[in-house]
């Protein structure tokens, strides 16, 4: 291992702010995008089943 | 085909003459924007002289973009645009005619006004000449590319702002070669290279954008 210890790895030769700033933003963006897509899927499914139940209920009322 | 082009241009020009206010507002916007910069940057002549071409070109770009709405929106509202889609000849000729009319109404006045306003920036005669030439070649490109943006955002709410978002990135090459032509002329390199590139962009735009805008119109009218 060329880094020796955790501290030198984290210090990144004095450029910690820049290197971890870039990779940190990458993690934030990637994780953020995943959460957005998963959240969108959940709301879509919830909304679709809600509208389906509504129309089903209306149909029963008109039928009754 | 030529007669159709002449009729479309004649129609749009008569309309523009009937509504002279639109033409003047574009021109006044250009003049006001150009005069604002020295107030913001300070009156030193050498800084103004260096940034003159860029400011004039950006102002011309914004002025012609603001008047893009006039290309199709008015005709869309009163149903005349639909009639254009139903004529036997090709729609791209009609769009080319409207682009030329838009350039005559909103482009040419800018070109004529630019040297006068350029004096505020202390531009030398060679610079003013290069500015005139680059604007003369550049403003029709702005109208042509702008027509695509106007056709895409037809009838959308907030269309004005949206069209600028779509069209400004596409204006970058024209701005670079246009303003660059003036700097090249001033620095003695000569503006031929920039002007010929502008000419090439103009040909490309005149060939491609009428057809693209026609496709976009058919999509937006549906």
């Amino acid at each position, binding site marked *: 291992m060329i880094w020796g210890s955790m501290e030198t790895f984290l210090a990144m030769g004095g450029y910690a702010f820049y290197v971890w700033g870039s990779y940190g933003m990458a993690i934030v963006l990637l994780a953020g995008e995943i959460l957005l897509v998963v959240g969108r899927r959940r709301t879509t499914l919830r909304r679709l089943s809600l509208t389906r139940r509504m129309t089903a209920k209306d149909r029963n009322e008109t039928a009754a | 085909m030529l007669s159709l082009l002449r009729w479309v241009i004649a129609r749009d020009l008569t309309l523009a003459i009937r509504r002279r206010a639109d033409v003047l507002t574009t021109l006044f916007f250009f003049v006001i924007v150009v005069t604002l910069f020295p107030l913001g940057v300070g009156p030193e002549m050498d800084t103004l002289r260096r940034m003159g071409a860029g400011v004039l070109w950006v102002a011309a770009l914004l002025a012609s973009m603001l008047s893009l709405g006039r290309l199709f929106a008015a005709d869309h509202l009163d149903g005349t645009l639909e009639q254009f889609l139903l004529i*036997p000849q090709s729609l791209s000729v009609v769009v080319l005619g409207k682009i030329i009319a838009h350039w005559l109404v909103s482009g040419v006045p800018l070109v004529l006004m630019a040297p006068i306003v350029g004096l505020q920036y202390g531009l030398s005669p060679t610079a003013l000449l290069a500015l005139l030439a680059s604007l003369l070649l550049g403003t029709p490109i702005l109208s042509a590319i702008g027509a695509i943006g106007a056709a895409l955002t037809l009838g959308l709410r907030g269309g004005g702002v949206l069209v600028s978002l779509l069209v400004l990135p596409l204006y970058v090459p024209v701005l670079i070669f246009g303003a660059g032509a003036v700097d090249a002329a001033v620095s003695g390199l000569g503006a031929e290279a920039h002007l010929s590139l502008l000419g090439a962009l103009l040909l490309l735009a005149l060939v491609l954008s009428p057809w693209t805008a026609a496709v976009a119109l058919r999509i937006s009218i549906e």
Partner: protein
Amino acid sequence: MLEVANLACIRGERLLFKELSFSIRPGELLVVGGANGSGKTSLLRMLCGLLLPAAGEIRWQGRSMGSMRDVYPAAMMYIGHPNGLKDELTGLENLRFATALSGAPASRERIRRALARMGLGERELLPTGWLSQGQKRRTALARLLLSDCSLWILDEPFTALDKAAVELVQSLLEEHLRDDGLVVLTTHQDLEVAAPRLQRLHLAQ
């Protein structure tokens, strides 16, 4: 001859109609009825090629409309809800430009006669914006007199027209149908047009 085979129309996500088939022969009048929003205007816009149908096919003289970008528009005249007139231009200029763009510009004399026949008399020099709704509609309908299209597609031609104007337009329709023209129109009023063949189409909502 206009034939329509199992046409379907989707606006936004609503299915307006499907499996719609009919055909119109020369001298025939088709009246399209139906409540508002039932797709009357969409059907007309499909017939004139402004709107692509979701399914089905429209044929003019046996050839599919999609392939004939130039022949079909020359034979068809569409007057929609909006009048298609510029308020800043006079009636004369509006009609001159309209006829010029669809091929041959009509002479001023012929336009003046058409406007006179539509009861607009000497108003042709006024900007269209100054005219009343009824007069604007009549100016728009004057285009029917200036074209030799055989197929007329009219969306609510009688709106804002007074009794005399309605009768005038009905006589125009009869004249057109007599010399083998085809007409497709939508209207809410009841219609007394002596058509050689009359077909009614009701779009259920």
